[in-house]
């Protein structure tokens, strides 16, 4: 497999670690070489969290600025940040429209139309924009499995298929939690 670099970004508390672990394992199940690294520590307290996944031959677990093939944003403000910092021209942006307002918005120091900002940047740099389906979930952290299903359905990561994602979920979950996640996965996948 050719090189394919994925940068994930979200807010501490969204469960980005589990999402990135699932994607990395799905890539492994698909038989590709993979490495990556997540944010741990301080930022996990409601700050920006990021994760890097690299497919194919690579050296550093870190991706260079502006060189990711795919940016996954779990939150809309963070999608803009990830797009600005890491996505290459003509790459793909997959994001969730979930919004958790940053502090500056809540204390009335700043505000912006984030959707419009994302659209402008994507337009300027010929970026393919994919918005994750909006469905009602009982727990916000299940949004991650919606992202997985969209990745599988839209074949966003080359060579990684539905079966690989569900194997990865089975590596990491069991019992009713697994059932619930697989149910949402299949539902969004449209099976």
């Amino acid at each position, binding site marked *: 497999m050719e090189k394919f670099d994925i940068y994930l970004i979200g*807010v*501490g*508390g969204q469960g980005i670690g589990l999402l990135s672990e699932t994607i*990395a*394992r799905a890539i*492994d199940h698909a038989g590709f*070489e*993979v*490495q*990556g*690294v*997540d*944010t*741990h*520590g*301080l*930022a*996990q*307290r*409601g*700050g*920006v969290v990021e994760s890097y996944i690299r497919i194919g031959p*690579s*050296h*550093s*677990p*870190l*991706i*260079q*600025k*502006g060189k990711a093939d795919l940016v996954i944003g779990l939150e809309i*403000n*963070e999608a*803009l*940040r990830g*797009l*600005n910092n890491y996505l290459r021209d003509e790459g793909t942006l997959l994001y969730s429209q*979930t919004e*958790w*307002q*940053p*502090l*500056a*918005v*809540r*204390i*009335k120091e700043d505000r*912006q139309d984030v959707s419009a*900002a994302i659209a*402008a*940047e994507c337009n*300027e740099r010929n970026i393919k924009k994919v918005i994750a389906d909006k469905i009602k979930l*009982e*727990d*916000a952290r299940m949004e991650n499995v919606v992202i997985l299903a969209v990745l599988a359905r839209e074949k966003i990561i080359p060579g990684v298929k539905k079966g690989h994602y569900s194997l990865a979920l*089975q*590596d*990491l*979950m069991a019992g*009713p939690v697994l059932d619930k996640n697989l149910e949402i996965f299949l539902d969004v996948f449209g099976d």
Partner: protein
Amino acid sequence: MKKLGDVLLQPDSFSELLMGNHALVRAMLESGVRVVTSYPGSPTPEIGAAITSLPRDQNPLYFEFSVNEKVALEVAFGAAVNGRTSCVFFKSVGLNVASDSFVQLGLMDIPGGMVIVLGDDPGANSSQNEQDNRHFGRLSYIPIFEPKDPAEAYNMFKEAVRLSREKHMPVILRLTTHVCHAKQKIEFAPLKLEEQDNKPGFSPEKYGPYIPLTSSVFELKKIALERLKNFQEEMEDSPFHEVINNGSDRGIITTGLPFKSLMEVLPEIEEEVDILRLGVVHPLPEKLIIKFLKDHGEVKILEELDDFLEQKIKSLAYDHNLNTVIEGKVDFDDWIGEYTPDKVWDVLEKNWPDLLSSREERKPIHQAIPRPPQMCPGCGHRSAFFAIKKALQKEDISVADIGCHTLGYLPPYSLGQVLLSMGHSSGTASGLSLFNTEKNVVAFLGDSTLFHAGLPGIINSVFNQHNFTLIIMENDTTAMTGHQDNPGSGRNVRGETKKIAIAPLLESLGVEKIFEIDTYSQAKLTDYVKKAVEFDGFSVVIAKHPCMLKFSREQRKKGRTLKKVQITDKCREIHACVSAFGCPSFQLNQDGAVWVHDDLCIGDGSCIQTCPVQAIEIKK
């Protein structure tokens, strides 16, 4: 489901996608380590999590989170002089706390072998500095391995144990944040857990002396230097050093993760250069380095943080009359930050502008709004800061300490104006209160930190009659680093233990004025802080509430759904909840309307009392 503990205990060889911190535990098991100790701190606490994931009845490791790094190191040392192979791990700044005992280790004959795993943090991802702990190796005559990735960390750990046992000397394995946390597919060797004997191995007659006093200090120091020399000779041709020869006149000497960054940008560099990557960074393989210098006209030392290698390599070149051009750090930027691939490009470009072209940063059309970290929904520390702010004058001085509550320094609370290290707050506050009759001084301290390094400052405040108010932010856990138990929790990694209650402890120390209150009782807390501040002398307020992130996770695990609050039509858009109390669950619309985000709210209800018009209620 693949459970980490089961994966790590597989008897056969296998390959698995694992993070560096987890892979280390397999290395411990394979190399017969028996005692592991630590005090939690990023980037290393996941090592502890991996050990505690091992099924209790199959876990051959004794593990503890000690009260601080110094004690952790001493426990590991005690085990190792008794013949039990041990390992202590902690974060970069943990070594400062441990250092008084650490610097003695090199002098000691350690028959069991002892590996010190250090998690350095270039880039200060989750630390109060980015100190370069390689200096400590030189200071204490202790060798340092530095792996480039998780797979090598696993292999180097085993080699470190082997050498440590063979030479009876401590060995450091220095990791950095993105080696600890990087994930890759690692090939693991088979695991054979051998029955180990419990015969006491401690023998001052055979291995001592262990009392470094008077003339024995010199004798022990000489032995330490000899051991180090012997280690160096053996490591000259260690397979952990790596030479990449492209036949160039230009070479780069580098180590660890910066090597990987270099390999990442290399294909984009105009000319192929040669590389020497060092797996042991102290003591240096001198012959290998001299040969590399001789073979090249120009050598760049590419090293993260300080000029540790540069100084040593330049002096080697001087001693050997080499006229190779050696280029080290060019400016202060080269001393700062993690050597990511982007950074390595910028660093190299300064030396070799002919090989690397300047990279321009693209300006995005719209910048994203910054998102600083913040306290979680329901956090007891938030209620505390909200209430304490009301008790203080604007001019009062507030001293922060380390923990989740450090975040109180950010708006909207802005409490905490100075910070040195874990447990500094009482000492610093004492100093601030001297020759100071105008401003009250208030200091904060977390409960894990109180036991870790906070007690001497408290005792000193009693002993020397200082005049300030200490607010202990008790949440029953070591929250910031991932909820490890502390002596106030009533639990350790094995189960229940005696709980050291803070108020009686302080009473027994002679603290005269102690208030204790749950932080959700905000008005009372405000009142207590006012009284404490008015008190002439040293006073303490214990502001407690269990960590709500821990609580809400436990509830979710049990399958319970959490309640939510909602804003009623009594709302007058005063915005106390969203702007002054600042719980992230409150969202503010452009038109001024406030709503509660169900993704975030945990229904704790600590916000209800903050609304002057009672417009917040628990959703039915």
